[in-house]
């Protein structure tokens, strides 16, 4: 918990090299457990792949993990634009969950905020498909942001004002969101003339492709969101208040901060980021929305935020890693006949080692702080007592 308390600037000015070694030291302290967890997870996955070779071919194929990981790397690095494209929504989602962690909030509602944002953007985008491009794009993005933020605001407000825990309410709101988008897409937003339920064509509201074959404007938004959230958290008064209330709600309240405002604000902001992720996926990648839109972004984002230790830059790195895994998984399935779902397994095992960081630290003899230190206040409030 102490690590979230902002440190005052300690000493007199230091020289550049001193600062650099100190920064390196800090990065080592922070990154060693996550890196070790990733390494261990890759080893575990290799063992699973080995075991799979027994199931599929009847004998142990010791080369299979190497073939699989080779294909994975080739798929991820051979076409870096796919990695970036996969990482882009993960960055936004990771930031959304991470800022929640900083405020002592656990947003499992990413799915709902994402699909509602996506649906709103698809609806407004198709309605304005003939309007001038900039107007259509801005309006569609705004709609997605507002929808996501609203869906995040609800559990925030419920938590701050009634004490209903956000873990339960966001899970419930995910299912409600599924029903809402099914109704809206098969009702008011239904595009005529297709054999299946979907929203209309985007026309001018489609995000422009900026680099290469598929890097769209939304990727730029995701990249810009990293420093923006960092600034909000670590350089603004609001961010200071968010972190203080997250680290110690009572202390925050005694210091005159207002959890009654900060909690709904943070949840709405978190939902807004998921809303951007949803809208840019529709406006830049899939171009229309369907009622049964499946995505595991809500849980993937939690994994990204935890691996990135809730820090915007850490989240960016973690999102790139998971993006690379997803981008390479297809080629791996083709070349090594290893189902793409192995990526979900790797992701879960990374989290497992992060949670069981005691084990990881003992294995690697790391003397660093525990991996998941920001989440302590989340579960403590589960019993319905306001923090």
């Amino acid at each position, binding site marked *: 918990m102490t690590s979230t308390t902002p440190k005052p600037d300690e000493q007199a000015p230091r020289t550049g090299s001193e600062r650099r070694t100190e920064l390196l030291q800090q990065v080592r302290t922070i990154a060693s457990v996550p890196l070790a967890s990733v390494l261990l997870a890759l080893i575990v996955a290799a063992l699973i792949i080995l075991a799979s070779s027994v199931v599929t071919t009847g004998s142990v194929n010791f080369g299979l993990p190497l073939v699989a990981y080779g294909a994975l790397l080739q798929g991820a690095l051979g076409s870096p634009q796919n990695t970036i494209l996969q990482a882009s929504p993960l960055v936004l989602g990771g930031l959304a969950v991470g800022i929640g962690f900083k405020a002592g909030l656990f947003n499992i509602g990413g799915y709902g905020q994402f699909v509602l944002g996506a649906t709103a953007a698809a609806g407004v985008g198709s309605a304005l498909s003939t309007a001038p491009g900039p107007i259509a794009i801005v309006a569609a993005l705004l709609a997605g942001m507002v929808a996501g933020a609203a869906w995040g605001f609800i559990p925030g407000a419920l938590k701050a004002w009634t004490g209903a825990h956000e*873990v339960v309410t966001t899970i419930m709101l995910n299912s409600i969101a599924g029903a809402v988008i099914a109704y809206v897409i098969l009702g008011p937003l239904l595009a005529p003339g297709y054999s299946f339920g979907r929203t209309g064509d985007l026309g001018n509201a489609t995000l422009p492709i900026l680099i290469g074959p598929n890097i769209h404007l939304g990727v730029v938004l995701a990249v810009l969101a990293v420093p923006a959230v960092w600034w909000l958290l670590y350089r603004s008064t609001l961010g200071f208040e968010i972190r203080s209330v997250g680290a110690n709600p009572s202390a925050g309240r005694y210091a005159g901060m207002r959890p009654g405002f900060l909690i709904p604000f943070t949840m709405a902001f978190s939902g807004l980021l998921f809303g951007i992720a949803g809208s840019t996926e529709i406006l830049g990648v899939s171009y229309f929305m369907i009622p049964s839109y499946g995505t595991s972004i809500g849980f993937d984002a939690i994994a990204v935020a935890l691996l990135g230790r809730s820090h915007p830059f850490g989240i960016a790195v973690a999102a790139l890693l998971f993006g690379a895994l997803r981008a390479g998984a297809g080629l791996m399935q083709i070349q090594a006949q290893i189902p793409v779902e192995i990526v979900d397994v790797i992701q879960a*095992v990374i989290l497992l080692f992060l949670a069981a960081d005691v084990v990881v630290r003992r294995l690697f003899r790391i003397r660093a702080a525990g991996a998941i230190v920001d989440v302590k206040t989340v579960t403590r409030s589960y019993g319905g007592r306001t923090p």
Partner: protein
Amino acid sequence: MDQIADLLTSIPVLGVVFQLIGYLVDTVPVIAPIFVGLAAPIALGALCGIMNERSGIVNIGIEGMMLSAAFTGFLAAGLVAQAFGGGTPGPVLGVTVPILIGVAVAVVTGMLVSLLHAWLSISIRADQIISGTIINILAFGLTGYLNRLIITPNPRLGAGILQPWHPPQALVDLPVVGWLFTAFFAHGPIAISVLFAVIFLQVMLFRSRWGLRTRAVGEHPRAAETVGIDVIALRYRNVILGGIFAGLAGAYLTLEQSGSFQNGMTSGRGFIALAAVIFGRWTPLGAFGAALLFTASEALRVAIGLRPPTNELGDVLRAIPNEFYGALPYIVTIVVLVAAVGRSVAPAAVGQPYYREART
């Protein structure tokens, strides 16, 4: 009598309410057996949640526990049936050796996954919500992976399903008792066992030494420790035993309801179970009631499709989008949570890791 009914139902606005009551009275007996069956996995999941939360462990991983049990149960039953035969349903409730083995494997899986949750939450003192999240992601990923690896190339894998019990006609013909019997017992063995499990756990939790100790550990572990209760051991035991219920819920899905496995086939039932725990105020009977209520709204949707109501009621119900009924359990849960917080609170120590050494 009919005239009074006609008079009542023809009152403007209020009449629709009377029509709704009439419609429910007409249809509930017909659909009740369906929704008691649908409620079985949710109620079983909720029992798992109660075992955890009453001992002070948050469990949002019920979904993952159910999913992994559903998978391993189906796989084990299917492999045994494939190796030794056994496609024909058994004489008593369709019980065959492969299915029995499948159910046993599912239960053991539920307990093993619960052991992981217990280890992370109790020994490692990891955040319990994170632990549950990990279990959900891991279960989804592993079952998806193994499904594609083992079951997809082997599409004929399966061991059939358990068969429902048909109560003797003499019982069914009894006025109210017969209806209750059909509603609660005209199911397969796992769904039948739910009612007994609920009553058993209710009695144990509030009328036995184990129950008192469990509740003490969930409310005030330090006080429990000072009177000689081994908090760590009891929490471990309860979380692992709770896995039995999650395992049964998983077995219900693949070995009693559908006879096949699909990725993510729990489709949120574990989360509804979590809601049922809260709605039922952490009591087995309450959670069972909540599970029934939640599936009733789903059953109502089916009923409206099968036997569309007439009159103004029909217009009203048709105006309500179909999707609303699907969302109803979740909306109700949020409303209940908001209304009940302060009066119905979770066990006090829930979510807090226990340190034996002095530390608040």
